[in-house]
């Protein structure tokens, strides 16, 4: 076929080419190199590394805490977005600006600050110790750090969507007899769900890869509070590059599968 299809929007070839080059240089080639480096290992060696008990424990911890933090932010972030969009109160602009601070703050600073607060000798950690549990140096502390670092994702993805739902829609539901909880359950949440899943996925993915803030508060005890990124650093310190990339490949694969699943779920929801 020689006929050229013409589109109203020009530059499809140019923009696609640019996208592919850009994506290749920044994402695909580095990731490809990661996989390539792993091939220095034999299949048996690879399996041995990624199925080591220490690695599996760290895998469980990393994904578990990232998931918990994403769920926690899914709730807190939704409430924050709701308050910021629906109500006008003094200091709203300040809170609005503060939401993004976790992104601006060096994660190590966040980690040190949280540790100082939640360590057994810190002001809040002391309280927890008196009540008989530990925050810092436990999975709980890691979840806390991840919740802090990933806070903006859910808030920022929900805000525009929430602002876009007219008040009238809630009033219409009320006129039809819906109670406040029914309005939330049947009108607001379904309308927010696709955006909420996006925010959740972003927070989750960021939490899995987070390093700086976690290593301070985690305590890094092997088998107990050691996250996967730290394990990679440990391998690198021992000049075990192939071993480090093997763990990297493991993380990437699991993350990719989970994010793909979230994406598919989102599509199903969006198409009714």
């Amino acid at each position: 076929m020689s006929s050229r299809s013409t589109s109203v929007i020009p530059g499809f070839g140019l923009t696609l080419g640019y996208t592919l080059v850009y994506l290749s240089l920044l994402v695909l080639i580095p990731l490809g190199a990661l996989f390539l480096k792993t091939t220095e290992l034999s299949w048996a060696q690879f399996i041995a590394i990624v199925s080591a008990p220490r690695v599996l424990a760290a895998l469980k911890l990393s994904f578990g805490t990232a998931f918990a933090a994403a769920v926690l932010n899914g709730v807190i972030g939704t409430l924050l977005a709701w308050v910021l969009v629906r109500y006008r109160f003094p200091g709203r602009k300040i809170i609005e600006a503060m939401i993004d601070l976790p992104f601006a703050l060096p994660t190590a600073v966040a980690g040190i600050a949280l540790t100082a607060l939640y360590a057994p000798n810190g002001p809040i950690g002391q309280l927890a110790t008196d009540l008989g549990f530990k925050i810092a140096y436990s999975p709980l502390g890691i979840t806390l750090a991840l919740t802090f670092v990933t806070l903006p994702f859910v808030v920022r993805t929900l805000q525009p969507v929430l602002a876009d739902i007219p008040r009238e829609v809630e009033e219409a539901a009320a006129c039809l007899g819906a109670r406040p909880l029914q309005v939330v359950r049947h009108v607001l949440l379904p309308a927010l769900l696709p955006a909420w899943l996006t925010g959740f996925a972003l927070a989750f993915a960021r939490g899995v890869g987070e390093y700086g803030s976690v290593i301070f508060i985690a305590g890094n005890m092997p088998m107990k509070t050691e996250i996967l990124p730290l394990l990679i650093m440990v391998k690198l310190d021992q000049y075990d590059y192939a071993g480090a990339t093997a763990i990297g490949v493991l993380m990437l694969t699991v993350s990719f599968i989970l994010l793909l699943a979230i994406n598919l779920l989102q599509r199903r929801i969006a198409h009714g």
Partner: protein
Amino acid sequence: MSIEVRDVNKRFGQFQALQAIDLHIQSGELVALLGPSGCGKTSLLRIIAGLETPDSGSIVLHGEDVSSRDVRDRNVGFVFQHYALFRHMTVFDNVAFGLRMKPKKLRPSEAVIAAKVHELLNLVQLDWLADRYPEQLSGGQRQRIALARALAVEPEVLLLDEPFGALDAKVRKELRRWLARLHEDVHLTSVFVTHDQEEAMEVADRIVVMNKGVIEQIGTPAQVYANPASEFVYHFLGDANRLQLDEQRSVLFRPHEVRLSREPQADFLAGEVHGIRPLGALTRVTLRLAGHHEPIEAEVGHDHPGLVGLGRGERLYFQPVPSAQAQPSAG
């Protein structure tokens, strides 16, 4: 179901939105709240629905004071200007919403709900769209779905806030005629808000003309048009010419309340033809008068003998024959 509004006042900050509103609407009536934007008509409608609380006064539905009752328990159907359909639900689910939200004991079975929804969709002639989403519909279709949704819970009163305001002129006309016919069939006490006098005249049994938070006049379309209670009502219900006779006296008349002649006649005034606009059955002639700022607009039948061969700049004689004069208002 009758509606009574008793001495309702509402203030938003410094702004007095409604002042001592008293209104009685008979069971089965179709009433228009007519007025310019900011006159308080929408606030009044929202207060009747229970979406807004008055500062003082009460709302009585069918002899029962519902002032302290929540919008959920007033059993009113409300139709919004911008439809307010649930975007993530199909047309079917939108209409079924009210029935599905009922408490378990009162909730009909899904089979009964489905039958009811299809019955309503047939009533608004859109049953074939049941599986579509609101964004796939035109504005007129969306508003009819919103109406079906409001009717699903069998409200005793139907309230419509500028229901045709977001539609284009042709659809608007079709839909308001359709609403008037529907009201004849269903006979539900209905109140609709509009700023369009033509819409109010064409659809309503009675018109409530509002201005600046007070009711200027209540009456049938014929009454308010023929016997306007104030100059405001007179001006709001149609185009008007004001002709200054001398320092004190002036006369108000509508464009069609005029006689035209090519020859000078007793009691006729002279004007210069400034424009001629054929409008279908009528033709509008704009006249400029010496010493007058405002031009006079006259509308006569397109076959009026005075129009034959008439051109711009020619001299034309006219006589105002006003049929209605605004009663000077008390103020």
